[in-house]
């Protein structure tokens, strides 16, 4: 529990640090208002169309694979923390685990899910 006091302190200092910079800037920065300030790219081309567009469906395949390997990380985490106590058997078991998952990745690769067109 007391370990997390440091985390809380870090959070508070981080918040004060970030908010302090923004607040000081807000208090002392010069103000000039014109319509170019509101453009997306201040000195670039004028933007066209709405910014909320429909995204390419293929992003979703990447999201799916990310979720699978994110769940894999949960299993890797306790293994990595006590890696030294588990010995060679632990290494072999984890390699079997990863091998089974790599089969899934291989299938995804074969199906062209990783190709971007």
């Amino acid at each position, binding site marked *: *529990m007391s370990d997390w006091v440091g985390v809380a302190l870090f959070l508070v200092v981080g918040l004060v640090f970030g908010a302090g910079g923004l607040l000081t800037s807000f208090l002392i920065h010069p103000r000039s208002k014109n319509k170019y300030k509101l453009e997306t790219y201040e000195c670039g081309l004028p933007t066209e169309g709405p910014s909320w567009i429909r995204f390419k469906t293929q*992003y979703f395949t990447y999201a799916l694979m990310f*979720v699978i390997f994110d*769940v894999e990380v949960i299993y890797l*985490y*306790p*293994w990595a923390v006590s890696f030294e106590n588990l010995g060679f058997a632990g290494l072999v078991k984890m390699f*079997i685990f990863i091998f089974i998952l790599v089969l899934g990745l291989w299938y995804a690769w074969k*199906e*062209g899910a990783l190709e971007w067109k």
Partner: protein
Amino acid sequence: MDNVYSLLAFVLLAGMILGSALLVVTLRNLVHSVLWLIVMFIGVAGTFLLLNADFVAAVQVLVYAGAVCIMLVFGVMLVQRPNMEHSNPINWRFKLAAPLVGGLFIVIGLLTAKSQLVVSGQEVPAQTVQALAPILLNDFVIPFEVAAILLTVALTGALLLVKEVKANGNGS
């Protein structure tokens, strides 16, 4: 709650969870709702930390704040409505919802107050992750490998469902 700091942290986290959960259901833009959902999940992770469950807290941040919200953001962005400003409409059916939710809250509260909470006499383990690894890799190694098979099946199944990928992949 063993001391005033834990109580303070709990109150702050509870406020954070409730506030962001309220914003999730009331904000009009679904993407903003998802972003507040991430704040809510991180608050829940904080309460897990208060309960000395650091592994569950890490999983909460990794899977819920990371993966689940990424899935939601992608889902929202792929099935776009013409106007994102009204993608999360609110309905104010208070008359139906308030007695239902209030009744449920009272029932849960009564049952919690009545129930005999079993308190383990053992010391709370300071490090849950280190204790978890031998259980996972020695005692339950077969279910552990089966979990890998399950993940692979989920991956292949999900890819089969988005089968159009192959047509795209071969440059049609």
